[in-house]
């Protein structure tokens, strides 16, 4: 069960902000601690948006696997596409509730490659990386998505394809994803090396290294 009660509990430190009553409180138990609901879809990216045409896009699984796999855009679209209703939570404290994506389950992709390690590094066009445990990528928890709310995923949001791991903070859902490298050890990705938490569970408020 999620820690719904957190937001109502009196703070342990006893500190109260003078004159603060909280006018935006939604009372929505889908919001993890410290998050607020955002109805738009803000864009957060460390650099310029890369221009990747679907024809140039491919997805590969390599590293410690029984058999490396690679899909072109057309091959990828022959796989079973799922509709994924979800809430997404950005570490900068906005959450978008009740959105949806369309894509292929990472379970299906990893099954074909047969991972031999317990960790993976997602890598993207443009050089972005983020690390995930295989456990966070399997059992219906992660997808490679090409659609958002029924439309092709826009480049600013990671189009043509991004990873979607909605149970972790959204930086783990790598935009412009190009593949997964399976590893026998864990290693920090881009934001994880720049001060952000190694796993990033929003319900535990794992924002930064020391959380």
């Amino acid at each position, binding site marked *: 069960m999620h820690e719904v009660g957190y*937001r*109502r*509990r*009196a*703070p342990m*430190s006893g*500190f*109260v*902000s*003078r*004159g*603060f*009553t*909280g*006018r*935006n*409180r939604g009372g929505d138990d889908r919001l993890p*601690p*410290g998050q*607020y609901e*955002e*109805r*738009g*879809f*803000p*864009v*957060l*990216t*460390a*650099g*310029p*948006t*890369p221009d990747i045409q679907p024809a140039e896009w491919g997805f590969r699984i390599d590293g410690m696997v029984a058999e490396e796999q690679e899909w072109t855009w057309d091959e990828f679209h022959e796989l079973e596409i799922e509709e994924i209703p979800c809430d997404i939570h950005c570490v*900068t*404290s*906005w959450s978008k509730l009740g959105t949806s994506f369309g894509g292929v389950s990472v379970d299906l992709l990893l099954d074909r490659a047969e991972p031999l390690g317990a960790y993976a590094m997602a890598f993207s066009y*443009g*050089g972005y990386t983020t690390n995930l445990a295989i456990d966070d990528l399997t059992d219906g928890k992660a997808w490679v998505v090409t659609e958002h709310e029924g439309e092709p995923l826009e480049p*600013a949001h990671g189009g043509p394809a991004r990873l979607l791991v909605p149970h972790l903070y959204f930086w783990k859902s790598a935009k412009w994803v190009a593949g997964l490298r399976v590893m026998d050890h864990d290693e920090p990705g*881009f*934001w994880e090396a*720049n*001060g*952000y938490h190694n796993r990033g569970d929003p319900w535990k408020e794992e*924002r*930064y*290294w*020391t*959380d």
Partner: protein
Amino acid sequence: MEMEVSQRAPGRWQIATVTAVTEETPWVKSFRLALPMWMPFLPGQHLDVRLTAPDGYRAQRSYSIASSPLDEGEVELTIDRLREGEVSGYFHDVVIEGDEVEVRGPFSSYFVWRGEAPALLIGGGSGVVPLMAMMRHRRRTMPDIDMKLVYSARTAEEVIYAEELDGDVVVTLTRDAPAGWTGHRGRIDAGLIGGLAADARIVLICGSNGFVEAAASLAMEAGVDPRMIRTERFGPTGQP
């Protein structure tokens, strides 16, 4: 005092005291905070601020530091009042000198300036805030090295830090310019960015998503390696 030092960590919440409030524009205020567990930071880093209501309800946001890390024991946060902003509204309407606010940080070591030069900074609106930390730090540490700031604001009234902007700053006004305004007008374009970007070793861009996309494209057209362009996009502006 060993104890105190060992407690310093960016992840630890601490209670800061507001030592000064400056009205920068009708919509923007700067808040100088004294931190009991101050830590050195890099220009460009941010703090998280958390507000707590009497019943335990909390709201949290990240704000860029505007001051130089040479101001030991203190940081300045410059806060743009967002429409219906729960936290920015609180800062603007309630917070006065002597108040306490809960903060932690500094965080994020990517959108930072570590002394690279020549540096081109491009800021839109309150995106100028982390860039001002870089300008201020460079002025006090290495005033001779090459750093330029292109700052796009809607009107002269909305220019933050107006009195501090010197010859290394190019301001462009995208809406109304006052009578006698001799500076640039209109949105950033190749004429404004191209030459400066061509000379730059690093380009740091902060603003709304649309602004950052435009500025990054101009820098790339001027031949800057995309890997040397660092961006920070703010704003739950509601724009998809």
